[in-house]
């Protein structure tokens, strides 16, 4: 029906926008989001938009390069799964995103609010500064008073609007009888405004309206930078969560229905296709296959699965379709129970005090005492409350933490931006500071140091004929070992043999007929061989005994470089894995890691990390599996790759977006540099105070000196932060 209509619609984007047209369409429309990690330039934007807009049923598609996403409005029956191949055909990797999970960043109200306040403070301070400069350059008497009155008229509404975040924050901490950085800020603003208004009333010489506004502007700039950094990290983290669109296939009276995982109930029959992940805990009722449990336990060898076996959410089905009966859903699955462990470990981490917090702890009381002393001293000296208040206000304004407010956010923004370009996502606000202190690095094996994809090691040891048979059989199966074997054989120039009647026996392997004899490639027991210690697929070529193809787990790109660089930087590198001793020892030798632990249970991992922490070590944990989750949370700081399970990503402070591990070593360097810059910035801010505060206390500070001290210190601090980029 609408099928004929669609191409013409897509060919003319203007028609889509025309109102009469949308009235004809059904009121519902599908909004889809695709993640496009590979786009990076103008040509990519054009190609993707052209291709998507040419698809039938799509009303509009727009690429957002900053977020590396495409937002699509389409007819209700268009599905993201149909669009992904379209983009892959023109060479762009695409993943479906769950729009519901992205909702939080869709309309970013808090960010806009802050930006609006920043703009108001900025424009108001420009206008007031203009008037103030005239006063400083010699305007006097009636002109000066008029300028002051105009300034007051601009400043009061502007401050009341833009400084609201500070008022609100200060009020919340004061209510619980505590102090933070916002209390001196608010006190300085209020005191400056009131004394300036009073001075203006008495046609006095000094008014601090411009200072109050610039102060608000700089502080809001710091807040906004801080917010942006976190918003970028949050939206990317949400995107990772949104990548796993939670759907499952429920079987009801022999029919298949695609339903959201959240709707599954205990006792439901669920079909899990090869390559799919178990949505819930359950028991296999039909089908034979192999399960990849590496994300949960760290074992690389797939486990044979047959009816009766209990499965946990998160395991990956490899070869044959499986029907499972759900025994635990949602919050009760073993995957979710792990988050409790994480919550316990996390409470330990919140004890960390950031540099900014410790600075504020020293700073806030100090400022109050100083200005109170200045007030008391001048009052006792002159018995003039006007002079005393003016000087107290000047002290508060000059010491006000403009530069302090920018010192940390400017540096973390620069550092996070640099690491984001390298493919690292800083999720936690203090992660960089903690990363800078790291002296011990603990790696997980499977999925972290290794890519989780097997590699054939003894291809050269087989006869050409055997290889040809093996290649043909392997290409008939989607088992990871078969895929790896087929790829390696193709690369070696092996041509397929004429094997007929190839069938895959789920859970066992593939078999066929070659020159009248039965040939098999699969599990050791199935072809009549003894299972060795190494991962292997056995070939029974119909002549003689079965021969093994040995596999080793391929290293993740950059793993060796990362380990080497970390060791060169003087850090202790450890390998703790749940895999068998042989596999772990082998990998440790390949990477030159001398300290390793094999067959570690999840509790062992976190206990070892805890032990290292008790010895005073600052541990960086890098892991991806469910079995690493507790250790990730227990470590001083943690990193997980994007391929990790949701629970592991949530527990870690930094997410590695790309495949490459190499940025880890660089991140430690950047973090150390960032912390150094933060400290430098604190020193710069203090230096300005040391010069300006005595002037203020001595009563020599003018609004001009306050403006100079404030602006120069803020600008130097920002420039110093930019050196990181």
């Amino acid at each position, binding site marked *: 029906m609408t099928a004929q209509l669609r191409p013409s619609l897509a060919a003319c*984007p*203007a028609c889509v*926008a025309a109102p009469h047209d949308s009235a004809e369409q059904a009121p519902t429309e599908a909004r889809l989001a695709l993640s496009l990690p590979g786009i990076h*330039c*103008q040509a990519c*934007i*054009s190609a993707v938009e052209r291709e998507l807009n040419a698809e039938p049923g799509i009303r509009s598609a727009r*690429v*957002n*390069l*900053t*977020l590396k996403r495409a937002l699509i409005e389409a007819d209700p029956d268009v599905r993201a799964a149909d669009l992904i191949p379209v983009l892959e055909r023109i060479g762009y990797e695409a993943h479906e995103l769950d729009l519901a999970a992205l909702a939080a960043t869709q309309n970013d109200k808090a960010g*806009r609010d802050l*930006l*609006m306040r920043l*703009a*108001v403070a900025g*424009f*108001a301070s*420009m*206008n007031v500064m*203009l*008037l103030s400069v005239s006063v400083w350059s010699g305007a006097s008497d009636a*002109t000066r008073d*008029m300028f002051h009155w*105009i300034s007051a008229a*601009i400043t009061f509404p502007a401050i009341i609007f833009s400084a609201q975040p500070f008022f609100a924050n200060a009020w919340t901490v004061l209510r619980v009888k505590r102090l933070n950085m916002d209390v001196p800020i608010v006190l300085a603003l209020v005191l400056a405004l009131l004394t300036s208004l009073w001075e203006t009333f008495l046609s006095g010489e000094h008014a601090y309206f411009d200072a109050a506004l610039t102060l608000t502007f700089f502080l809001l700039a710091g807040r906004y930078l801080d917010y942006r950094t976190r918003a970028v990290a949050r939206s990317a983290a949400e995107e990772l969560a949104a990548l796993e669109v939670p759907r499952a296939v429920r079987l009801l009276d022999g029919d298949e229905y695609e339903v959201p995982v959240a709707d599954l109930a205990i006792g439901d029959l669920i079909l899990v296709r090869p390559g799919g992940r178990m949505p819930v805990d359950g028991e296999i009722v039909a089908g034979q296959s192999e399960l990849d449990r590496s994300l949960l336990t760290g074992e690389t060898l797939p486990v044979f699965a047959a009816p009766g076996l209990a499965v946990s959410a998160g395991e990956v089905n490899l070869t044959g379709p499986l029907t499972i009966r759900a025994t635990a859903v949602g919050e009760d699955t073993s995957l979710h129970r792990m988050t409790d462990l994480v919550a316990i470990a996390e409470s330990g981490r919140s004890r960390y005090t950031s540099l900014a917090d410790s600075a504020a702890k020293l700073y806030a009381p100090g400022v109050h005492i100083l200005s109170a002393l200045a007030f008391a001293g001048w009052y006792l000296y002159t018995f003039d409350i006007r002079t005393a208040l003016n000087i107290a206000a000047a002290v508060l304004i000059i010491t006000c933490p403009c530069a302090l407010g920018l010192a940390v956010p400017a540096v973390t923004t620069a550092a996070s931006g640099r690491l984001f370009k390298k493919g690292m996502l800083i999720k936690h606000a203090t992660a960089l500071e903690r990363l800078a202190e790291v002296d011990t690095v603990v790696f997980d094996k499977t999925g972290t140091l290794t890519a989780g994809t097997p590699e054939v090691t003894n291809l050269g040891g087989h006869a050409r004929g055997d290889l040809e048979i093996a290649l043909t059989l392997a290409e008939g199966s989607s088992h990871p070992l078969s895929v790896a074997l087929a790829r390696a054989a193709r690369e070696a120039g092996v041509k397929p043999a004429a094997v007929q009647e190839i069938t895959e026996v789920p859970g066992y392997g593939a078999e066929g007929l070659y020159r009248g004899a039965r040939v098999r490639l699969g599990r050791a027991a199935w072809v009549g061989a003894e299972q060795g210690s190494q991962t292997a697929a056995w070939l029974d070529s119909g002549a003689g005994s079965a021969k093994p193809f040995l596999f080793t787990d391929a290293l993740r790109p950059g793993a060796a470089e990362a380990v080497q660089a970390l060791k060169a930087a003087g850090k202790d590198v450890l390998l703790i894995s749940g895999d068998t001793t042989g596999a772990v020892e082998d990998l440790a030798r390949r990477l030159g890691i001398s300290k390793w632990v094999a067959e570690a249970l999840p509790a062992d991992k976190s206990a070892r990390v805890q032990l290292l922490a008790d010895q005073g070590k600052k541990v960086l944990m890098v892991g991806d599996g469910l079995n690493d989750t507790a250790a990730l949370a227990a470590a001083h700081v943690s990193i997980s790759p994007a391929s990790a399970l949701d629970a592991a990503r949530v527990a870690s402070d930094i997410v590695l977006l790309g495949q490459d591990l190499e940025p880890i070593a660089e991140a430690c360097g950047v973090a150390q540099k960032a912390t150094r810059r933060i400290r430098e910035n604190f020193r710069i801010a203090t230096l300005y105070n040391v010069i300006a505060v005595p002037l203020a206390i001595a009563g020599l500070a003018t609004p001009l000196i306050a403006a100079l001290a404030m602006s120069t210190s803020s600008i130097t601090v920002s420039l110093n932060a930019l050196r990181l980029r």
Partner: protein
Amino acid sequence: MSVLTYLIPISLILGAVGLAAFIYTVRSNQYDDPEGDARRILSDEWDDKPKP
């Protein structure tokens, strides 16, 4: 000093115009994709006439 009666209102109005323009750009989502917008000007697809 009578020149001030013109200049001060003018400076205030210009400031207000700048602020209004900025608020308009925020409201119309012009900061959502700074990187993409910077590169879209290089596209030659809409060089002859504005995008409908």
